[in-house]
């Protein structure tokens, strides 16, 4: 069921940061810092976005030898379109959409 629930400031900030990044990949910690949200809010939002097909996630090879691969994120084309609408405040919020 889709409910008209206003977008939380955390979701708004995250979407804005991801939208601004465009096709560039971002990491979780950097995203949280840029959006000013804690990891306890960040990851549920990312999980929700990915589940709805609005977020692409991939494991990126380590930048230095010996370092582990990292999970990186960017909005999908659908996600970018939705983010633009949401940030204009005209579309139902993500929180109400089925995962």
């Amino acid at each position, binding site marked *: 069921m889709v409910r008209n629930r206003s977008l939380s400031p955390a979701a708004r900030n995250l979407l804005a940061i991801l939208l601004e990044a465009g096709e560039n990949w971002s990491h979780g*910690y950097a995203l949280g810092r840029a959006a000013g949200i*804690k*990891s*306890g809010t960040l*990851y549920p939002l990312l999980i929700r976005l990915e589940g709805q097909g609005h977020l692409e996630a991939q494991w990126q090879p380590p930048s230095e030898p010996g370092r582990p691969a*990292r999970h990186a994120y960017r909005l999908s084309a659908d996600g970018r379109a939705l983010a633009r609408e949401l940030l204009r405040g005209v579309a139902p919020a993500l929180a109400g959409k089925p995962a």
Partner: protein
Amino acid sequence: MIRLLAMALVDLAAALLPARLGHWGEAMRRETGEIAAPAEALRFAFGCLRGAIGEAMRVHGGDGAMWHGRGWVGFCAIGATGLGIAYMAIGGAPFGYPLRNLAALLIGFLAVGIVTHLPRTRLLAAGPVLLALGLFLLAASLLGVSNEGATRWISIYGLSIQPSLVLVPVLAIGFAAVRDRLSMLGVIAAAGALALQPDRAMAGALAAGLAALALVRPERKVWLALLAASAGSVATLLQPDVQPAMPFVDQILFTAFAVHPLAGLMVVAGSLLLLVPARARWGRDPGYAVFGALWLAIVLAAALGNYPTPLVGYGGSAIVGYLLSMLGLPKAIGATDGVADLPRREAEHGVLRTSIA
């Protein structure tokens, strides 16, 4: 040390996430590992744990607010007992301690399974059962094993069991479900038993549970039961209760931090986990209100005095008692709770409300 703690927390977060979100747990773990400042990594890991708990609850419950409250009691019992076993391992407890707690967990699940499948008969109705439990507690107070002036244990094959920790929770929560005369008498008998023992922790816990019940169901029988429990609690305060602190049993909410910060964190996390099932419908279903108030009081008593720390400390009675608590709770927690839902809710209610009642 701080980094180690951060990684342990994020490992716990990853373990709590449902299997289909496993890659997110790994993502959290690796991201935490990339943070240079240990304190920042710890904050990030704490957040991940909070998020993982929320996700686990959401996914297990489906997209609506429907999730299984009784299932959560079992889940939290496993989690808290597991954290307690880890604490005991870090603290160097005798090998038998964690094994006995594990055995109690199995016995508790087995007992719940057996009771759930008992046939519905008049004798096994909630009232007679709860009265029998109250009288059994009274008999244990009079004939049980004494130590330092308190009589609150029974010995079975050399194993010391505290019947009040096993039976008072299900008695109080069962009374919340079926508030008839016999159930009330069972509660009053239990209050008398706890006053006789004396056991300030369990007497206080019973009074706290009934006070919560009186808030949501202010009925005559509830007030009478609360009066008896309060009188019993006052009676325990007027008597000396000077049990020495037992290692790995009492006062561990503080002493565990002296063992290792991670051990302390596990004990605190395990204790908080016990209250999670009540969070779902506190104030809406009387059983959950009693459950929350009662187990909160038991945890607080363990923090303030020489009383067993439930589930995370050594001792099987609380583990079995916690699991038996679920018998008085509804099977499922619904999103709605109006008068129109009453027939459905009654149909979903726990063993003490249907199978036995």
